[in-house]
């Protein structure tokens, strides 16, 4: 037996053991990562549910304002929730949650409307059937929905945020505009709404 032949089985055994040891460590790390991932998924899910619990009314209002029918409202809301869920991991908390919800929901609504631009709009009566409140409130809600309905997509988003009392700065950040442009746009939108209200009063 040569010296080489005598040593090589021992070396192979050592290398084999080291490989096994390394493999075990990798597997243990993989298992740990999977557990961490599961944990972070659960945490994310909890965070998502809590966020929706708080912002549910905002999401519904935005989707409702972009809708012309019950089917459209359901689709916009469902797609908005999907997009919020998908975007949660990327939410770094730099903007306020409300501003972020606005940005994702408005973008989601616009994207869905563009892709499903052939919605058959029924009369608004069907959509207004979703409003569950007393008559005086219902009338005011329908009136503001009709007024917002005459606005363009960007104007709708701006006035919704203004109605929700977001600051001009927050609206500007969300819409990618500067503060002065937002102020000018809000003035013009209010003029349009005032004209629409006046028209309704005449009828």
């Amino acid at each position: 037996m040569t010296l080489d032949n005598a040593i090589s089985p021992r070396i192979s055994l050592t290398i084999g053991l080291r490989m096994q040891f390394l493999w075990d460590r990798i597997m243990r790390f993989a298992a740990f990562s999977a557990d961490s991932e599961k944990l972070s998924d659960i945490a994310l899910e909890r965070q998502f549910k809590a966020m929706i619990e708080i912002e549910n009314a905002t999401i519904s209002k935005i989707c409702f304002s972009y809708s012309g029918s019950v089917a459209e409202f359901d689709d916009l809301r469902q797609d908005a929730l999907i997009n919020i869920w998908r975007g949660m991991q990327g939410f770094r908390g730099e903007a306020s949650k409300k501003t972020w919800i606005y940005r994702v929901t408005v973008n989601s609504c616009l994207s869905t409307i563009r892709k499903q631009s052939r919605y058959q709009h029924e009369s608004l009566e069907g959509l207004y059937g979703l409003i569950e409140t007393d008559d005086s409130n219902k009338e005011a809600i329908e009136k503001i929905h009709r007024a917002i309905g005459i606005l363009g997509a960007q104007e709708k988003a701006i006035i919704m945020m203004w109605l929700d009392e977001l600051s001009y700065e927050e609206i500007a950040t969300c819409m990618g505009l500067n503060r002065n442009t937002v102020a000018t746009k809000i003035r013009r939108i209010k003029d349009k709404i005032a004209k629409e209200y006046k028209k309704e009063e005449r009828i």
Partner: protein
Amino acid sequence: MSAENLDIVQMRKAWLAMGQSLGVQPSQGNDPENLNKRKRPLTVFGANIECSGPSHY
């Protein structure tokens, strides 16, 4: 009516009421596990199109 005459308080009250009155419970459809499963078909041109998920994403 001019923009100055708009009753902003009333408008904001109506806007707030809209969110509260839409009757959509937060628990309806906000379970991430169910989000990708469309519970009902998409309605386009009045025709029902079966859709198992948001294929347009």
